[in-house]
């Protein structure tokens, strides 16, 4: 065993590349867009070295399609974009969801709407990550707040996508995508890498959408002797279109349930000085960094403030927030938008405590002092 740690100074987007490689990524399709382009550049350089494939497609829609195609053919696949590109990916993201095709989509958030603020951070896409593609569907979205977490959560994203047969969104923001921090790159033998379940039955008995007990059907890759159909239409166990209302209902519910029943595995949160807290901050991404500092400053003033930091933002950790709402008097939700996560927090709190938003949409980071100011202002009320 090599005891020497592999420590590097990496940019957030570079850490995503390293995390993806450790996860076994073998395919990347993308389209240039700020602030995620370094991921494509890293992939273009590194994938062929390990026999993987990189392709720059004609647009964001095509990139998403190619990623799904490559995953169907058995390769762990990644694409990366930002808000305007994420809009375009929604169409085929839905296709990946309904066909349960593993893949990871990075959205390095920038200000919006539209072209917005290409080089400034935002958290405006939290609800888009949840509801961007049409129809009733589940999604997993992870949101790191440090460069090191970008690496570890990229690995998690691939693992979740393979384990639950679903696309996973990795929601960065411009600041953590571009900042450089110390990263500890784990040795391959020290990380858990999950690969999709393969069928255990012969091809003639294989039902591509018949779930196991965990709600997830084993997945045969194209070209491995299992011939079957994939369609964006609602389909039966065989993968063939159905208009049977019972089959439709069971299918849509199963898509949700396979995520819902594994929520304990999927939800990753960190509690910081919450045990005795009377005021809680709930934050993710680069805002969570500021909020952590706010907690320290507030504690110095004798204020019992703690932080719930979300690393998984979808599915939302409603149970944890509900418990917290019963403990504290006040929850403040600082976020770089005019109130997206706060809606979920309000819903989960069910009126058990006061929930207050703190939003900023000027393209600047939320800083610790202003969150502290918000706390002082609110406790006077």
């Amino acid at each position, binding site marked *: 065993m090599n005891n020497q740690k592999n420590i590097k100074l990496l940019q957030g987007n570079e850490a995503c590349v*390293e995390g993806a*490689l450790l996860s076994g990524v*073998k*395919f990347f*399709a993308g389209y240039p867009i700020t602030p995620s382009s370094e991921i494509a550049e890293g992939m273009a*350089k*590194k994938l*062929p*070295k*390990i*026999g993987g*494939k990189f*392709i720059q*497609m*004609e*647009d964001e*829609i*095509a*990139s998403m*399609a*190619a*990623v*799904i*195609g*490559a*995953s*169907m*053919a*058995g*390769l762990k*696949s990644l694409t990366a974009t930002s808000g305007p590109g994420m809009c375009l990916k929604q*169409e*085929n993201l839905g*296709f990946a969801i309904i066909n349960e095709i593993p893949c990871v989509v990075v959205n390095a958030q920038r200000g919006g709407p539209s072209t917005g603020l290409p080089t400034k951070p935002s958290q405006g896409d939290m609800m888009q990550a949840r509801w961007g593609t049409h129809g009733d569907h589940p999604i997993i979205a992870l949101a790191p707040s440090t460069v090191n977490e970008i690496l570890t959560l990229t690995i998690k994203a691939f693992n979740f996508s393979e384990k639950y047969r679903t696309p996973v969104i990795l929601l960065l923001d411009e600041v953590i995508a571009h900042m450089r921090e110390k990263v500890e790159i784990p040795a391959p033998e020290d990380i858990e890498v999950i690969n999709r379940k393969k069928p255990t039955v012969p091809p003639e008995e294989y039902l591509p959408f018949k779930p196991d007990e965990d709600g997830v059907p084993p997945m045969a890759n*194209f*070209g491995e*002797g*299992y*011939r*079957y*159909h*994939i*369609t*964006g*239409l609602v389909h039966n166990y*065989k993968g*063939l*279109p159905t208009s049977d209302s019972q089959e439709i209902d069971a299918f849509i519910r199963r898509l949700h349930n396979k995520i819902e029943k594994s929520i304990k595995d999927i939800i990753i949160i960190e509690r910081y000085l919450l045990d005795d807290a009377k005021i809680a901050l709930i934050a993710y991404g680069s805002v969570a960094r500021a909020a952590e500092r706010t907690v320290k400053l507030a504690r110095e003033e004798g204020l019992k403030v703690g932080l719930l930091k979300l690393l998984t933002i979808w599915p939302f950790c409603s149970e944890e927030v509900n418990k917290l709402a019963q403990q504290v008097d006040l929850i403040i939700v600082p976020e770089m938008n005019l109130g997206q996560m706060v809606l979920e927090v309000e819903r989960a709190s069910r009126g058990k405590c006061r929930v207050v938003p703190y939003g900023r949409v000027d393209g600047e980071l939320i800083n610790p002092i202003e969150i502290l100011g918000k706390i002082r202002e609110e406790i006077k009320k």
Partner: protein
Amino acid sequence: MKTIIDNYIRKEMFPNIWCPGCGNGIVLGAIIRAIDELKWDKNEIVAVSGIGCSSRITGYVDFCTMNTTHGRALPFATGIKMAKPDLKVIVVMGDGDCSAIGGNHFIHAARRNIDLTAIIINNMIYGMTGGQYSPLTPTGKFGSTAPYGNIDQTFDLAELATAAGASYVARGTVYNARQSSSLIKKALDKKGFSVVEIISDCPISYGKMNKMKSPVDMLKWIKDITVSKKVWEALSEEEKEGKLVTGEFVNIDRMDYSEKYKGIIKKAQEMGGNKQ
């Protein structure tokens, strides 16, 4: 009696959803006969389609099949081919699917010369949604969204594919199914991006609005508006107006995309070894 077709279809999917007299079945037959002659292993064939009547073909054939989103079949197929270059990947599209919503993907697949076969069933109309005009509806003809006649110019898909860099380009018709099957066979066998446009009929949507009520009327019309390359060359510019030329237009040998990418892998590994 078992026919060649029986060996390649998913019987449980029949009867199909196509209208009586639709040309899609003729194209399906032509594709299957071509594959049968090539003796391809069904396990190695992937058929990809988008949205529209023609795209339902993938549901009916016993390969690995993928009925994807509107216009996007080619980029899905590109991902599959990149991932597993040994698979034989066939893409079936309609005229709206390929030339309108999927137009950008079409020219770029041709430009890359990725080893896919694109078969475009051109019935000159959006059939499934009820007969709206497509980029391939002839100027002056009618559609449900062109009630006063279509003023748009059409694309010539074969010329578009040629200009964009396809290695094989041909056009056939459902009237001449045997020729279509042999063009498809050559396209399938071609390394690189190959394109076969099949002029087809939609008696229900196109025919009704353009005074061709029966499938026979439509097939006769297709016969009348298409000419072979040989005849075409002898026609005056005036005579060429409103006519479509059939046959093989491009058949060149060029290194395909996956082969080129192997060169990238070799170069990258020589430069930096296997280390990340």
